[in-house]
């Protein structure tokens, strides 16, 4: 087993070591805080480190006051999660002036109830309207695999902190791809669960129709363990499902037998750099997946996701756009302002199309259990890069890193990102997409790829 005090230790490595008494939780926290201190001047993943609280919690664990499957596991959360006693920044300067959270967000409470220890809040794109991980107020989070490059966003600090080995587990949010894009660019496993599966209570919203929360980690077992700990109905989130929890850790070992695996063609097989399609082909070969499936009307789905995002997000921020426009990040301000002016008829049409598209895509799941697709159209762009060329067309980086993620979150399908690392190259991820509430199928495929050495998420 990996040394539980090292940067390579996974959450399950740490939990096993603490539970068996091989290491004290206090020692784990000391090692984590030292790594954070050493990495942060370069990586810039954290906006808040809560060392005192983390040490106190670790001491309680060492006195036997807490139990759980994630015992002693340090984790950090995107700073749109409420952390008691801190303002919920949501990547903004405006919220930093706001009230301090009265209690932790629901998922923070659930992870701590499972024995994990919160160590801090993480950098993110302002108000989650971002695919880059850049932020004018707090500086960009930097990709640990090449610090001149983007982490992807908007959960950029979550990707950076886990890829740098500062923590083994982080939470992010995903409205249009904000867990999946940084998982791909930082070379991590990431899980965007089914819409409504995990409570969003105690997190700052962006687009209620699409907001999801979920984990990023360096092993599939860590995704499953944290996902299992966070499931369950929550009356504080009206979207949260009242279906019974569906534990996934125990099925990871079942492998891929019995799973029908398709590869997304058409929209998902064009418009990206060769490395995006090579990654999908590598995974498809490893899984012997030859069935090409066309996700119908994906380009319209992306357009509809864009419209709903622009209008809902802008409506949310309208009071702040009126009162404090100068305090917005320049990269979000004018996009929000433009979104506030779009016609309401576009929004209603997008919502009507959403219902039609959900029904059409669900038909595909009569033939397959999971669908493979690229996670991002390219590896990590350079920090500050504004334009990129995809399929011979020059396009804005900011709007197009989520080209392949938006049509999937639009209808709330669960997705696991499996990262591929090429020697000497930058990582890139593949989306493993399952039907609603079937996170287990996507996790089983990801675990098989990890076991076979096809997908991996080493600390940089």
């Amino acid at each position, binding site marked *: 087993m990996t040394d539980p005090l090292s940067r390579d230790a996974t959450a399950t490595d740490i939990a096993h070591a603490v539970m068996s008494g091989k290491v004290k939780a206090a020692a784990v926290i000391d090692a984590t805080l030292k790594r954070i201190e050493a990495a942060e001047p370069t990586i810039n993943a954290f906006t808040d480190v809560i060392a005192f609280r983390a040490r106190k919690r670790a001491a309680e664990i060492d006195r036997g006051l807490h139990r759980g499957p994630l015992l002693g596991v340090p984790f950090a959360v995107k700073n749109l999660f409420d952390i008691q006693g801190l303002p919920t920044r949501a990547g903004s300067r405006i919220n930093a002036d706001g009230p301090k959270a009265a209690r932790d967000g629901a998922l923070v409470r659930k992870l701590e109830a499972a024995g994990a220890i919160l160590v801090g809040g993480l950098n993110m794109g302002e108000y989650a309207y971002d695919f880059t991980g850049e932020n004018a107020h707090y500086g960009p989070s930097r990709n640990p695999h090449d610090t001149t490059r983007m982490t992807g966003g908007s959960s950029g600090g979550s990707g950076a902190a886990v890829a740098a080995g500062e923590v083994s587990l982080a939470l992010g949010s995903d409205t249009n791809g904000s867990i999946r894009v940084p998982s791909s660019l930082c070379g991590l496993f990431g899980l965007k669960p089914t819409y409504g599966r995990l409570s969003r209570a105690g997190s700052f919203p962006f687009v209620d129709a699409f907001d999801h929360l979920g984990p990023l980690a360096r092993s599939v077992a860590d995704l499953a363990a944290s996902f299992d700990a966070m499931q369950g109905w929550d009356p504080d989130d009206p979207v949260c499902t009242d279906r019974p929890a569906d534990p996934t850790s125990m099925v990871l070992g079942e492998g891929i037998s019995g799973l029908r695996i398709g590869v997304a063609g058409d929209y998902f097989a064009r418009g990206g750099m060769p490395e995006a399609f090579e990654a999908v082909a590598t995974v498809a070969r490893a899984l012997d997946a030859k069935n090409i499936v066309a996700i119908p009307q994906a380009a319209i789905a992306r357009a509809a996701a*864009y419209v709903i995002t622009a209008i809902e997000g802008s409506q949310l921020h309208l009071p702040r756009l009126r009162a404090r426009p100068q305090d917005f990040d320049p990269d979000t301000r004018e996009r929000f*302002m*433009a979104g506030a*002016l779009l016609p309401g008829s576009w929004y209603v049409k997008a919502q009507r199309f959403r*219902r039609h598209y959900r029904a059409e895509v669900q038909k595909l799941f009569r033939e397959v259990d999971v669908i493979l697709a690229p996670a991002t159209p390219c590896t990590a762009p350079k920090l500050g890069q504004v334009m990129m060329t995809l399929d011979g067309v020059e396009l804005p980086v900011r709007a197009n890193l989520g080209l392949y993620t938006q049509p999937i979150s639009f209808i*709330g399908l669960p997705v696991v990102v499996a990262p591929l690392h090429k020697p000497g190259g930058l990582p890139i991820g593949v989306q493993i997409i399952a039907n609603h509430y079937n996170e287990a199928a996507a996790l089983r495929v990801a675990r098989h790829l990890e076991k076979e050495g096809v997908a991996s998420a080493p600390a940089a």
Partner: protein
Amino acid sequence: MADEKPDIGRLVDEAAKAIGLPIAEQYRANVIVNYERSMAIARPLLEVELDDELTSGPVFRP
């Protein structure tokens, strides 16, 4: 008339007035750029025809 290009600058100015959103001169050009970009991205949605019977639920359930 259908092919006539809309005056997005004017649209932005008037719509902003209508909803009470002051847009300072230094932000205006980029708001117009973003509005035009939104129009381009939304085009596939705006062009698709939907059945009258297709409604959206008030609460989305996957």
